[in-house]
Every structure is written in structure tokens, then in C-alpha cells.
């Protein structure tokens, strides 16, 4: 374990996971907002919006994330000139956030849409009967109930997002998987130890997350 007693290596490890947390946190927030919007589009009465939602979900859900992230750098930034920061590390970070959010939003959308299906049709019919518009029905009646039903699945998506954020490494974000690669490159004799430490840290971060979301899901579930 002497690999991790070197302060340089410790810093590499800590920066790696701090990038992971930042990528996950910001992408999760964006993906949640975007995913709910997409779900609303997919259940809306407007065919164009439904079409956009469907195309989005089918495109991003069925494309490898590595491809999306590489496209964010070589396509959006390099070819189309979308520059988000003058600092190269931050630029790559925000490009990764775009890719991760767009990808994860597709999964959030489908989870929320399945949640909407758990709300009995009578609820929406009653809302319409008292004169609420589509937006009001969704916002006040349907989504609050749907949201409570999909907390555990959203937790799974968050866990997947945390692990997926390691893919930001392919465009040079110094996240954990990149840090692990550097450490393995420098310490070929301690490959298994390094691997166990990184894998263990991910498990330590994510197992409680899973339990928390299950607990929250049970607590907030709508009893029918």
C-alpha cells in the first residue's frame, strides 16, 4: 500500500474523486431538470414535442457514452467551436457535463414517464374536470405522485451516472479512472492494490447512495 503513502499520489487520488463528484453533482442536477422536461414533452398532447422527446431518448439512450463524450470535445468544441472556458481543464469538464447530462436525461425521462404511468388515469381526468390545463395537471397533480414512485429508479440512475463520469477521462478530465491509469503506469507492481483502492472508494460512495434512495423511496411512496 506504499503507493498511497506518497503525497503526490494521494493528491492524484483525491483530485480524481473530487472531479467525479463535481461531474456527477452538476450533471445529475441538469439531467434531472432536462429529463423531467423531456418526460413532460413525451406525454404532452403536442405531436411535435412528443416527437422531439422520442428522438432525444432514442438517440442518447442508444449511443455509447464514450462516443457522446468524444463528440462533445472533437465535435462541439473542436469543429463547431463551442468554447465554455478559456482554461482547458474546465472546458473539458463542462463539455463532459453536457455529454453526461444529455445522456442521463434520456434515462431520467424514461424513469419519470414510467412513474407517470403509475398515477391512475382518474387523477388526470379529475384534474381536467375541475378545469386545470395540461401544464397545471402535470405540475400539480401528476408529477408529484409520479416523482414519489420513481425515487428508487432515479437512485439507480444516479449510481450509474457516478460510474459513467469516469468516461470524462477520455477527453482529459483528470478524474478517478485517469488517476488510476497514471498510478498504474507509474507503479506496475501494485496494480491490484491500486485497483482495489479505487474500486473500493467507488463502492464506499455508492452503496450508501443506493440504500439512501431505497429508504427515501419507501418513505415517500404513495400508498394506494
Amino acid at each position, binding site marked *: 500500500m506504499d503507493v498511497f503513502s506518497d503525497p503526490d499520489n494521494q493528491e492524484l487520488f483525491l483530485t480524481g474523486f473530487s472531479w467525479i463528484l463535481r461531474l456527477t453533482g452538476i450533471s445529475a442536477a441538469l439531467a434531472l431538470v432536462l429529463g423531467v422536461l423531456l418526460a413532460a414533452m413525451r406525454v404532452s398532447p403536442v405531436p411535435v414535442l412528443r416527437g422531439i422527446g422520442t428522438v432525444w431518448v432514442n438517440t442518447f439512450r442508444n449511443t455509447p457514452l464514450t462516443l457522446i463524450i468524444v463528440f462533445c470535445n472533437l465535435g462541439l468544441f473542436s469543429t463547431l467551436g463551442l468554447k465554455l472556458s478559456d482554461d*482547458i481543464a474546465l472546458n473539458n469538464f463542462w463539455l463532459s457535463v453536457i455529454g453526461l447530462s444529455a445522456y442521463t436525461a434520456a434515462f431520467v425521462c424514461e424513469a419519470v414517464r414510467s412513474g407517470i404511468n403509475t398515477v391512475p388515469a382518474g387523477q388526470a381526468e379529475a384534474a381536467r374536470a375541475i378545469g386545470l390545463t395540461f401544464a397545471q395537471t402535470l405540475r400539480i397533480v401528476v408529477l408529484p405522485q409520479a416523482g414519489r414512485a420513481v425515487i428508487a429508479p432515479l437512485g439507480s440512475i444516479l449510481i450509474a451516472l457516478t460510474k459513467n463520469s469516469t468516461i470524462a477521462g*477520455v477527453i482529459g478530465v483528470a478524474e478517478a479512472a485517469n488517476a488510476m491509469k497514471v498510478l498504474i*503506469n507509474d507503479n506496475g507492481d501494485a496494480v491490484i492494490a491500486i485497483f482495489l483502492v479505487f474500486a473500493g472508494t467507488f463502492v464506499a460512495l455508492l452503496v450508501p447512495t443506493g440504500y439512501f434512495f431505497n429508504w427515501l423511496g419507501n418513505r415517500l411512496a404513495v400508498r394506494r
Partner: protein
Amino acid sequence: MRIKRMAAVVAVSMLALSVAACGGDEGGDDAGTGDNGGSTATGIVGKAEKSKRLVVGVKADQPGLGLQTGAQYEGFDIEIAKIIAKGLGVDAGSIEWKTTVSANREPFLQQGQVDLVVATYTINDERKEKVNFAGPYYIAGQDLLVPSASTLAGPEGLAGKKVCSVAGSTPAKRIKTEFPQAQLQEFDAYSKCVTALAGGSVDAVTTDDIILAGYAAQSQYAGKFKVVGKTFSEEPYGIGLAKADKTGCEKVNEILKAAAGDGSYKAAWDATLGKSGKAAPELDTSKLTNCA
């Protein structure tokens, strides 16, 4: 009751984990001593004689040096590996090529997954602690690849510029330590760096000059890029072998020496990197002294 059962499960899994951890550590040590100790008895010379087969780690994404197209590998490193295999009595058809990237060359050798590594493998002291190096068979130097119109004249001009290299590689490390004013973009492969350079999102790509020459000579980039030509490091390319295999290392050096004499070294160059117009270098046989 349930809590008791949960506690038992947790305890058992902790136990399993700690056992796995111990096993892991020992495994690491074994790879350092035990496994290689086993291969000392035979080494690559013995293995080549017995099985008439070799597993060679090479790069797959470096035009001119080690490039995979379909199932075929081609390049200078590949030719060198063939020369060595021939010298060991293994014919080219019996070589199993294995793609390596910069980060996994030492682990592959230490774990015995490959017998030889011929993959733009710079000999340095840090690596010598983990593997044995025959060679060098070529002395490269770190250089910059820039667009043809660029005025960048050398590494001193990199301040504030964006320079691209592969994460965890020696050139990337050198930029970080010696030219910290440069902004370093890291990808997982040089081909992405070159795409980024073509798109204009980075100002230069940096790694060893012959690798850059290989990219500059690729037909789709013809005339677009130039190699600055001011090397700022010396990268002696060696052939990696297991740490314990000193005999094999010396044997490889002998084969290299013979290849320099009988013209097969020059032929290997002319068939690959020589196509870029660069004349074959002299193989300095007096420097083949890295075996330990």
C-alpha cells in the same frame, strides 16, 4: 433475528474482502518475484525454443511504428519484433501480437501476459526498476507537431498555448513539469490529438518525433502539418522484457547487433518509416548495454 442475519452477512463479506485484499497484495508480489522467477528458468529464449511462439506487445495506433489495420499490424516496431523473433527461431507467422498502450506495458510484462514489448518504449531508470530493456534500437526525441502555417518554433513558445498528448505518457509528464505555462490537453490516444489539431482546438501535439512524422505523413493530413524539428528530450526506444530475464535481454541485443550488420535493420526502416523520406539511422551497437 433479521438484524443478526444482516450482521452475519456483513461480517462474512468483510472477511471475504480482507482475504481478497491479502490475496491481492500477495498476487502483486508474486508478479514481481515468483512468476518472473519461474520464467527465469526458461526466459524468452527457452520459451521460443520450446513452443516456437512469442507474444509481443505493440502499439496499434501509431502510423509508421505500430499500426493495426484489421487483424494486421505494421510499422517499424513490428519489423523489429519480427527480426528478434527470427533470431530466436520463431517465424513471423507464429508471433501473437498484443495491443498495448503506454499505461499497460509494465503491467503486461510483470504479469507475463507478453514476452516482449516493442512499443515506442522509452528506456528510463524508473521503468528499469520494473522491467529489463534490450536496445535501444532507435533514439527518438520529444518534438512538436503543428499546423504548416504555425510560427511555433520550439517548446519555449508554448506558454499559454494548448498542447495535446496522451494521459499518463512520458511526453505529457514532461510538459507538466518542464513547461507548466503550456495548457495540456490529454486524450487517451494520439489519433484524437491529431484530430483535435486538424480541427484547430489545440495548437500543437507533442510526443516523440518519429511518431509525429508518422502522423504528418498520413495521406489525409498531407501538407497540413509539420514537425517543428527541435527535439527537447532523448528517448532511447528499448525492447521490454521481464525483469528477471537477463539472458533473454542479452540475446536480443546480440540479434540487434547482427541485424545492424546484415542490413535487415535498414531494410526494416526503409519498409516503414523510411517512406517519410527520412534516411535510415545508424544502430549504435555500443549503446546496447541496458540489460540488468
